[in-house]
């Protein structure tokens, strides 16, 4: 079923909340190194899909397989994070009382167990790694600022930086450009493309201009299942997509 190129494989995934089907037999295949944009109206199941992949929500039915044969439905959030799936939330969630530096330090790949962190000292390698990420997310000048004091856009970027620090194979990014200026949006698209050179990315986004700028394959969700899939031009022309999402 899962050939070598497949990184993430969802088949027939169904999630119900009190009778309401948030996901309805959703199936999706993501290849290694692929960037995918997921769009859809509110309530289409985009966030629930992320919840299922990251272990926050257990599906009622269906398969979720990562890599060759890892069944994600049997793992919880920390296990899945350790496998190399990182997630950025819709609302930027950084550790506000910590500095930008400490936020990245906590996100940095490494031993997560208390017995390690209790005695851990910052290594030179860790320092270099954080410096590199700071440069990538353009927050080098803000390294000692409280994360809570950053602007909205800076928080979004810090969170992307934390994702990078995790060194995941797959990044799930929920609405990365919500509330950003046009310039920031453009820079973010550029950043994601850069990240995509080494990692697979799933981007959930409402901003069609941004999706177009990414220039990747698009999956349209509607009522918990895939309505249409293909290039941005393909799905934009699909009458069903126009009907439920884009409007005439």
């Amino acid at each position: 079923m899962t050939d070598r190129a497949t990184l993430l494989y969802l088949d027939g995934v169904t999630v119900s909340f009190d009778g309401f089907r948030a996901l309805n037999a959703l199936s999706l295949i993501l290849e290694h190194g692929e960037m995918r944009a997921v769009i859809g109206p509110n309530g289409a199941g985009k966030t629930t899909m992320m919840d299922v992949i990251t272990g926050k929500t257990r599906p009622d039915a269906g398969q979720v397989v990562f890599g060759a044969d890892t069944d994600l439905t049997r793992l919880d959030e920390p296990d899945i994070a350790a496998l190399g799936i990182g997630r950025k939330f819709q609302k930027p969630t950084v550790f506000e009382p910590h500095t930008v530096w400490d936020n990245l330090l906590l996100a940095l790949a490494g031993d997560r167990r208390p017995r390690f962190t209790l005695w851990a000292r910052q290594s030179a390698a860790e320092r270099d790694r954080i410096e590199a990420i700071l440069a990538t997310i353009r927050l080098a000048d803000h390294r000692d600022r409280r994360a809570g004091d950053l602007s909205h856009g800076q928080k979004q970027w810090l969170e992307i930086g934390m994702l990078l620090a995790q060194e995941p194979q797959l990044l799930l990014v929920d609405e990365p450009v919500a509330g950003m200026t046009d310039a920031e949006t453009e820079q973010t698209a550029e950043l994601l493309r850069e990240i995509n050179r080494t990692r697979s990315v799933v981007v959930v986004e409402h901003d069609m201009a941004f999706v177009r700028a990414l220039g990747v394959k698009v999956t349209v969700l509607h009522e918990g299942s895939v309505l249409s899939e293909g290039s941005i031009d393909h799905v934009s022309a699909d009458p069903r997509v126009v009907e439920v999402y884009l409007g005439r």
Partner: protein
Amino acid sequence: MNLIRVLLLMFALCPFAAQAQDDPFAGLAGNYEAIRHAVEALAVSGNPNAAATVAALQAGTLFAAPDQSLWIRQGDTLTNARTGVTGTPEGDLRRVRVNNAVRRAIEEATGALTLFAPVPAKRIKAAADLFAQHDAAMLPMLERALAKETDPAVRGAIEQAYAAALLAAGVAPVTDRLAAIDVLRRRGDLDASNLLASLTNQPPQVAAAAARAVAAIARVQRLWALAQGVFYGLSLGSVLLLAAAGLAITFGVMGVINMAHGEMVMLGAYTTFLVQQAIGAYAPALAGAGVVLAVPAAFVVAGAVGIAVERLLIRFLYGRPLETLLATWGLSLALQQAVRSIFGASNRDVTSPGWMSGAAQWGGLTITFNRLYIIVFAALVVAALMAVLRFTPLGLRMRAVTQNRRMAAAMGIRTPWIDALTFGLGSGVAGMAGVALSQIDNVSPNLGQGYIIDSFMVVVFGGVGNLWGTLVSALTLGIVNKFLEPVAGAVLAKIFVLVLLILFIQRKPRGLFPLKGRAVEA
């Protein structure tokens, strides 16, 4: 005329004639031995004047005339004991004396004689006493009583006493004994079972029937005990429900951790005390209605305090549950001390009205009225609360505000006022609970402290934001507690329940009936 004369003559001669046929009264004029025999004879004689005579003998108002006639003195009038006719005896009267043997005979006889008392309740009591004595000597009298008795309830009681005496006599035919065993089995209580178990030297079929009856009674008793346990459990559960119902609103619906909730209950109890005092001072005729009048008063007092607390304290702390917890705890300390300063630290005396005391026996079930009324009151309070939430405009607004505050505000609902009223409602309900608790618990400044942890556990166990859950949870906890009590003792039972709850919340942090869906996650 002739006929009347004959009758009068007969009447006049009657005592003598009776004496000739062994007059039961005769020995009363004799020595102690004779008196004792006479009392025993009177007990089983069925003579209509026997009861009054024995009573007079006991009271020391029975006198014998030299002509052997017996007179009962009541004030200045003398009544002939044999005939019941007032008159004047000839010669000096001598008091009939008693000794201990006679006194014992009198006591036994009084029980038997009451079998013919005019009030059915007294006859039932007498039959019950005779059942307990199950004395074979009483058989003839029981037979006579049975023949005369028309009241079915009394007949039943006498039949049981008869059956008991018959089995104790151990001489009746086997079929009669089997019938008697059947009567006792239908009686079905512990006394019947003990009597049946104590039978010895019976023919095999009788012994077997008795054993079967004992087993049958034991089964019935277990069911009654179960029912009694359920009743006690419901009673405790309704107390928990009353204490927790207000919290189900303030904590369950609004999400406010009000540690001063118990003090709202306490204020309700003190309001009951004040209402009682006021009625005692100004309208003693209404004393029986004091509790009823206290219900609205407690609702208003506690509700008003609740609204004030919400406006002055809690509204500054929305969204900060842990701070709310601490601030309301401080409030509870201050309220306790305030009540202590005003009313003193000792318990205040709230008396239950007459109609709330007493108990009814129903089969093996004892139903005390105050517990029953509390169950009914709890049911009414919860029903009213549900009705308010579901059918009134206020309830609609409350639900709107709790589900989506911003949208509710956008639709023109004054959310701050709804918050205050909701909190007032929850506090008012707590006050009403205080009225009920004042009837069964000590009214002291610490009253509320005893209920606060239980109340929170009830609400959490039932599922926050769910009044039905609170109901089920309170009753479940009440019943579980009462069934553990006989096994483990009251304190240990409570500890067990607490530990079980702690473990339960670990397994299902959202309670028995959790609210589901994405809204919960947010």
